[in-house]
């Protein structure tokens, strides 16, 4: 076939349009089936088709009256392949007498005598295919019937347009949903990453002291704002803190970051735990509007471990609190004491929060436990709270235990709650080990 360059370009554009409507090789569709049935009825013909012309074939989106199994035919000239090249209806009154159609193999194979078609034209002028009526005897098509066939082709085009709009809408929605899911995952990753910066990746080695910490996450989606840290001060003491900011998620994680770095900076600048909490209070009041305050609870302490060789070894702790549950001193004897700095309001709410300190001295075998209220406020599956009393009972069983064993025991309790936990929990345990028994030679 001698095809000019311009025709090739036009055909390329036409095929792009065909692909855009994404109709080739799709399953039967009732709307198009009804159109061909209607065409067969109103034109009183045995065969009617809705065809889409692909680059190398004529594919039937719907057909009425063709022998079973004919879903597509070749692009042989004379019938469909010729109809697609016309702007208006294409009529072959008698194929046997028509020089264009007589050579088409389907004329002989199907006994086609009459063929008429109207192109299915997109709004931008591309012919996707045709609606066709076929008879086994010669016929003429009146001007009115040509108009009717053209109208049917327009109906098919409208149906294709509707179908495309639905596909586009569904695709857009899927894409939107995928984007939202990705965004959600990204936010979770961000919050989780941020949260990892809120606790030290490893605890420092404090000579003479055993340390352990745990962070138990209640929900993988929404990180809580629990935090802790322990670090060396220039004057030889150690500073430590543990707390909980209000809220959950990325906002809480961002605030926790501010709290942690403010406490670290203030601890190096101010030897007094009350002064450190006041610095944090001022920083939070400055950062957040009173119309929507952001607050935290915190225990901040400094400790001094007696010099090596000093007997008996001891740890002196000064603890300041802002609205936080009391720390627990777990004595080697089995006694458990609540260390509760008197006063001390939530940090970040008012100018004069009245912070106070409490002092504790740890002897060998004693431990100090700091925890956030995710532990005591944990709701059991039955709806009961773990509560302070049960925590005191648990702590009593940990008398004389080393810090890592204390943390392990609490972790077992927390995992035992299963999905009943609503809040994250942080625990920091410090123990002064008993002197190792002297080995006699």
């Amino acid at each position, binding site marked *: 076939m001698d095809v000019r360059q311009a025709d090739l370009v036009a055909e390329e554009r036409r095929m792009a349009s065909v692909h855009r409507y994404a109709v080739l090789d799709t399953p039967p569709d009732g709307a198009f089936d009804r159109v061909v049935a209607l065409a067969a009825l109103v034109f009183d013909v045995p065969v009617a088709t809705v065809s889409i012309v692909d680059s190398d074939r004529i594919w039937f989106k719907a057909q009425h009256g063709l022998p079973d199994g004919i879903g597509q035919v070749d692009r042989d000239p004379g019938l469909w392949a010729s109809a697609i090249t016309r702007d208006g209806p294409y009529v072959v009154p008698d194929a046997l007498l028509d020089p264009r159609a007589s050579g088409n193999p389907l004329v002989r194979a199907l006994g086609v005598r009459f063929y008429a078609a109207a192109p299915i034209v997109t709004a931008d002028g591309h012919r996707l295919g045709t609606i066709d009526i076929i008879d086994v005897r010669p016929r003429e098509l009146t001007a009115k019937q040509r108009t009717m066939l053209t109208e049917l082709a327009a109906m098919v085009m409208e149906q294709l347009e509707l179908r495309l709009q639905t596909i586009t809408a569904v695709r857009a929605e899927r894409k939107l949903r995928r984007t939202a899911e990705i965004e959600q995952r990204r936010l979770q990753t961000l919050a989780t990453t941020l949260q990892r910066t809120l606790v030290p990746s490893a605890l420092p080695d404090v000579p003479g002291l055993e340390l352990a910490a745990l962070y138990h996450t209640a929900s993988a989606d929404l990180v809580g704002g629990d935090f802790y840290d322990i670090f060396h001060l220039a004057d030889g003491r150690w500073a430590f803190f543990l707390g909980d900011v209000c809220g959950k998620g990325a906002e809480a994680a961002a605030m926790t970051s501010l709290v942690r770095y403010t406490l670290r900076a203030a601890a190096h600048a101010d030897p007094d735990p009350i002064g450190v909490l006041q610095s944090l209070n001022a920083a939070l009041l400055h950062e957040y509007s009173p119309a*929507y305050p952001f607050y935290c609870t915190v225990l901040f302490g400094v400790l001094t471990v007696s010099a090596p060789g000093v007997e008996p070894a001891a740890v002196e702790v000064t603890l300041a609190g802002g609205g936080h549950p009391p720390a627990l001193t777990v004595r080697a004897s089995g006694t458990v004491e609540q260390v509760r700095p008197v006063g001390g*309001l939530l940090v970040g709410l*008012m100018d004069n929060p009245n912070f106070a300190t409490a002092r504790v001295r740890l002897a060998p075998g004693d431990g100090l436990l700091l925890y956030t209220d995710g532990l005591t406020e944990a709701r059991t599956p039955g709806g009961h709270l773990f509560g302070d009393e049960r925590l005191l009972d648990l702590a009593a069983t940990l008398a004389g235990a080393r810090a890592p064993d204390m943390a392990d025991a609490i972790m077992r309790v927390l995992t035992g709650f299963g999905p009943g936990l609503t809040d994250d929990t942080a625990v920091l345990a410090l123990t002064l080990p008993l002197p190792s028994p002297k080995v006699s030679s």
Partner: protein
Amino acid sequence: MTAAVHLDPHPDDTLPQTLVIALSGELDYTNAEELRARILALLTAEQSCLVLDLADLTFCDSTGIRIFLALRTVIIDRGGVVSLTDLHPRLDRVFQMTGLVHFFAVQPTRADALAVLRAHPPGAAARPRLPADG
């Protein structure tokens, strides 16, 4: 767990300047912001006091408390007080431990809170409300 918090206004004819609301259900980070908006929407321009009856509030997390504090800022700005009543023992313990009792007029019952407001009505709004006020 999907928490739900409900809100029931209990207007008191003798205290037109007071918005009285009973909260029930569970207040947490999933519904706190919505509750704040709903209470602010109920608060009329004339009302400068807020009484929240928490008898049926079975759970309240830190975000819930933050909402009370945010409402308190609005009410203090109008020269009024926020009364919280009928706190569950657990919430009461949290309020004691954190010092939040100093931020609110915490009363044993709603009737107590209303009686105090009748006996000692807070002064009129400390300053005229400007159109720019949120």
